[in-house]
């Protein structure tokens, strides 16, 4: 077992330092790059916090949809194949809900400030 602080706590501490102490001192193109870097660290923090729960829920939904279990990537491959062949579509019970939930969970990590995401959060 690894010691504490956790990766999430460490990354958050670094991101906060860069955001609060360094960003105000940097100008020009490097200021832009620094912002991108801080955004990347924030994204990693969100993923470390949320991924386990959302992956488990996605797996459970895929099992329901496909009637089979497996690693997430393989289940997604199987689902893609069925969609491509037209074996499942938006009329298939659960498919639209599954795609929506999976996508919302991705946005919660990737881009929680994306306007479409914020709109849909209040639009469940």
């Amino acid at each position, binding site marked *: 077992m690894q010691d504490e602080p956790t990766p999430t706590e460490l990354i958050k501490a670094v991101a906060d330092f860069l955001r609060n102490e360094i960003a105000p001192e940097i100008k020009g193109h490097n200021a832009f790059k620094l912002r991108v870097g801080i955004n990347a660290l924030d*994204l990693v923090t969100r993923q470390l916090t949320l991924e386990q729960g959302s992956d488990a829920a996605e797996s459970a939904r895929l099992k329901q949809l496909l009637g089979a279990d497996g690693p997430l990537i393989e289940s997604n491959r199987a689902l*893609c194949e069925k*969609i491509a062949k037209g074996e499942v579509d938006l009329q298939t019970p659960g498919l639209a809900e599954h795609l929506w939930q999976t*996508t919302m969970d991705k946005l919660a990590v990737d*881009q929680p400030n994306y306007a479409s*995401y914020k*709109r849909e959060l209040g639009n469940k």
Partner: protein
Amino acid sequence: MIEEQLGRCVASWYPGATGVTGAAKLSGGASQETWTFDIVHPSGNVGAILRRAPPGYGASPGRAAGLDAEATLMQLAHDAGLPSPRVMHVLKPADELGRGFIMQRIEGETIARKILRDEQFAKARPILARQLGRVIAGIHGLAPAKLPKLREMSATKEIADLEREYRSFDRPRPVFELALRWLRERDPGPSREVTLVHGDFRHGNLIIGPDGVRAVLDWELAHVGDPMEDLGWICVNSWRFGEIDKPVGGFGTREELFAGYEEAGRKVDPDRVMFWEVMGTLRWGIMCCGMMQRFRQGPDHSMERAMIGRRSSETEIDLLRLLAPRGK
């Protein structure tokens, strides 16, 4: 060093020019660069832009129209009275600057967030969608006989290209799969009319002033195809920068865009435009995945590239909003 070469080049075609000053690189990947500089002249300096593939880079990759074609299209647009910079010089081997061209620099803004939020564009925003509709109509109206050789595209070809690229990533994305299926099932077939298509008509490639649109840039993705493609592409949600209820670039409505287009004597097919909006949304999503691939394979191992890869999910939610809207 580039100032010396530019100075020699400019002196060969600009009477009275004594050199150049203030050369600065604005953007550049490995194969294409954009530079800004001033031509020094006794009657006052003249702003100019160099767009080039540096020496050692040959033909443009993949879908690119090529710099010579870009120069020709820009000049055609300029001659037709469309907002387009005047092409001052097409590079020759003797210039030792690579391939490309030098054009007039047009002052204004290309950054979407400023155009959508800054006070100085407050009067431009309400008129832009209609104006751009007229400009797009003007582009589509350019005489086919004068066009340089361009790739020919159709909805069917574009779907196949996108699918091939998506499959090459070998990473399953059910929402993209759904969108591909949707597009294949609704492929409207060949367009009745085939015209010049700009191919990347959106924020970033438009110079906007307080008075409205001043120039259309970046003809790299120009091709011949369904004119409705340009109208669909500018409505893609990724170019609304948060103003999601204003489909045209975050500043206007489809009705305004279409009205401008039809004022210029052309017809809009709203269903086809919507089809191309879905295609465009998927296309941007796949382009984001492509950035991620290039990040992983290098040589451009930049954070920016990596983070653009994480924007492909934005297009997934936008595709779902288009294809499977939830009850409001």
